[in-house]
């Protein structure tokens, strides 16, 4: 999993590509963990290049969201592919996240 992180004034953008499954979810967790460790609780997750996410991936997002919200921050999702949007729906977790059409709108709303 390629992971890139970009810092902006009021949020960090994390972008990864490929599959977020039981095999790779921990890498994503680590990536978010590094941002959270810096006490930065505004995160945009750019999902444009995510091909697949399993429940393990969803949990990483939910746990990260918990941590962010506890510190009055937020994890928001940008560029979420249709299939993955569908998984959030199916799992009934959609309402825990704000979805943005692109990274610019996501960053612009922090």
């Amino acid at each position, binding site marked *: 999993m390629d992971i890139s992180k970009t810092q902006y004034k009021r949020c960090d953008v994390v972008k990864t590509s490929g599959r977020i499954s039981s095999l790779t979810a921990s890498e994503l967790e680590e990536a978010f963990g590094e941002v959270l460790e810096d006490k930065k609780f505004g995160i945009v997750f750019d999902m444009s290049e995510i091909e697949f996410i399993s429940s393990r991936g969803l949990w990483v997002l939910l746990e990260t969201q918990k941590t962010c919200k506890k510190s009055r921050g937020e994890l928001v999702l940008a560029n979420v592919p249709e299939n993955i949007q569908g998984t959030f729906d*199916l799992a009934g977790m959609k309402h825990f996240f704000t979805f943005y059409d692109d990274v610019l709108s996501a960053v612009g709303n922090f």
Partner: protein
Amino acid sequence: MLEEIGALVVQTAQDAGFNPKDCYALQLAVDEACTNIIEHGYGGESRGEIECSCSYAGDQLTVVLRDWGQTFSPEDIPEPNFNVPIDKVQTRGAGLFLIHKIMDQVTFEFNTPNGNTLTMVKQKS
């Protein structure tokens, strides 16, 4: 292994004319099921075999997963509850829930002469 089983199921579903959304969902269900076998049935990675067969007939795709790991009582597993504030959500346990959401029939049989089988059926829409 996990990704190969997923690929096999997606290929079968595509060939059978399932739409892309359902193909993706099938891949997800199978991934969740295999992950459970690996992590709960066998208690970790690469500790045992999973056999997968996948067939299409009468507008139904049937996936059978067979393993020789630990058994459990599916009917005792509660559904996750997301109608609570986020800090109250119990993180764990959406895999079975997603499998049931995606598949039309889900049947567990344990300790048969051929090990444990999980049979999942999805109707073509």
